[in-house]
């Protein structure tokens, strides 16, 4: 298991290097000229040249990449071109809110999705199943920004929730109301897939031989569903949640923009659109790393949940 984990991490490292390179090259060809951006509307040629030299943008691309890599290896993600703030600090600062938002989104949507999926699987083909599946397909079909905008309008009309920003950690009385709307919008992304996956895997598990064995032992429906079927069905669900973290990050980009949530998604979008090379690279690297780590964690979790994968 340790060997497998090491192998998984090494592969992840390769993937990361690829992410780094792609991210770097991607931003190399972006149209934004940071020197001109800093010089602003009346920046003169001389000023722009001076800024460019100051930023090291006059060096060859591969030199810039090598320099970047060597710094990353030393744990230095560089400084923002736009405001020279430490990229690392900015990302860490934004990571908290993003984590909060994603957790808040998952905290309601995961259990609900699971419950809906269980209900649908148990009543497969029935009315409840159809309702759940309809809700789930709507959930995956609706543009996140529409949900966001609807919630903004709803909140504006009902005066129920604050619609802007973050007012401190979400577990504080001040902070909590602010996360409700963005977490609602974001959680919707997860709800459909989780409900659907739960329904599929649980229906399969309910037809599995070992569930029949459990019933043959005289186990009741609750024990059969929760103790046997769901326990084996959980595995693909865990894997799905790992993969869904990707869409959740994508949703966070839009959600954070609409609700002014100071997270990494917004940071990344801002950085990309402002041509802030180190910040954009850092944010992409961070999101990709987080995604990879989540999936390594999912692998480990899967191995813990499924003895069949252990020691293989």
């Amino acid at each position: 298991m340790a060997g497998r984990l090491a192998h998984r991490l090494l592969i992840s490292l390769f993937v990361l290097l690829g992410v780094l390179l792609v991210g770097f090259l991607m931003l190399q060809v972006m149209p934004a000229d940071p020197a001109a951006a800093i010089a602003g509307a009346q920046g003169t040629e001389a000023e722009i040249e001076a800024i460019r030299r100051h930023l090291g943008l006059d060096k060859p691309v591969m030199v810039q990449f090598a320099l970047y890599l060597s710094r990353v290896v030393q744990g230095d993600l560089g400084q923002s071109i736009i405001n020279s703030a430490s990229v690392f600090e900015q990302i860490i600062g934004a990571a908290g809110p993003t984590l909060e938002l994603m957790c808040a989104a998952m905290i309601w949507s995961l259990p609900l999705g699971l419950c809906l999926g269980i209900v649908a699987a148990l009543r497969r083909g029935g009315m409840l199943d159809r309702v759940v599946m309809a809700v789930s397909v709507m959930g995956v079909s609706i543009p996140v920004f529409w949900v966001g905008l609807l919630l903004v309008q709803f909140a504006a009309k009902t005066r129920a929730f604050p619609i802007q920003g973050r007012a401190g950690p979400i577990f504080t009385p001040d902070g909590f109301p602010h996360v409700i709307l963005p977490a609602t919008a974001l959680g919707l992304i997860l709800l459909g897939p989780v409900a659907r996956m739960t329904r599929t895997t649980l229906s399969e598990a309910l037809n599995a031989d070992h569930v029949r064995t459990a019933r043959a032992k005289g186990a009741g429906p609750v024990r059969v569903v929760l103790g046997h079927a769901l326990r084996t069905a959980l595995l693909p669900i865990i894997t799905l949640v790992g993969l869904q973290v990707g869409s959740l990050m994508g949703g966070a980009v839009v959600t954070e923009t609409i609700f002014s949530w100071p997270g990494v998604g917004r940071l990344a979008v801002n950085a990309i659109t402002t041509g802030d090379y180190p910040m954009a690279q850092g944010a992409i690297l961070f999101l990709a790393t987080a995604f990879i780590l989540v999936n390594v964690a999912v692998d480990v979790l899967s191995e813990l949940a499924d003895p069949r994968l252990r020691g293989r």
Partner: protein
Amino acid sequence: MKHMPQDTMLTTDITRPDPLLVAQGLTVTFATDQGPLRALDAVDLTLAPGETLAVVGESGSGKSVLSLALMGLLPGTARIEADSLTFEGRDLTAITERDFRALRGTGMSMIFQEPATALNPVRRIGDQIVEAIRLHEDIPVRKARTRAIEALAATGIPAPAERAEAFPHQLSGGMRQRALIAMALVHRPRLLIADEPTTALDVTVQAQILDLIRDLARETGTATLFITHDMGVVAEMADRVAVLYAGRLVETAPSAALFSSPEHPYTVGLLGSMPQMNARGEPMLPIQGTVPDPRVMPPGCHFHPRCPFAAGACLTDRPALRQVRPGQMSACHNAPLIETLGGAT
């Protein structure tokens, strides 16, 4: 066709007046997209305490449906009808789900064909047996665990305490089947339903498992409903045999009688197509054609399209199960075969 019980008065074994299990006119119908599908058609069975009844049939004969119907484990799409279906005198068609659940594992138990999938892959063997124990007996986990290890030991599993800590995938197929047997017999049920328990195993392991089931059943006085497609296994295990074909019971007889004088052409064909019954180098005796599609069952005798003797009434009338000699019944218009057809050929 309406089933007529008076034709089929069960006179199997008068020395055992209180049958453990009685099924009369057991019919199972599945609702499918293409309409209802009759998997079992008016099947009559009795099983005495301690007896081993082998149910023989090929794919599509309805033998697995029969076992699940008796266990009350058929899916919701299945409809069970029976003139009578009793276990120890209790009407299984009228019993509540809760009472049926209490019966499963204690009164009747089951082991399955695929030991690889029949155990919960994510839970330890011991825990699964402990669960089986504690479902019906309110005893502390530690005591249950001791019992579970004893049960494993009784199946001949070496180092049972260690095996109890193992997950199913860490055991071989034979070990898994032993564990399932241990689990099924932990409450000493009166009836064990074994649904092709050795089909997935190698022949040397099969021999071990067959011995185990026979010994344990004898030891605990458990009656066994042994489902298989292998006539060799039947010969080895059964006191009595019931032959199913396309959802219908075609012949039932004590084992010795069936193997010495089968009275249904299908049984004859089944035995005749075994290599052992054919001379080396000669073509074997096959049963022509294939099992009919359950959605388009032939009229009359279900076997008639494949039967070399089929003629006249076989094509139109359903043959009733009738006694050919004491304890042996055959659902064939031509039974007894040799007496009826012997002169003709």
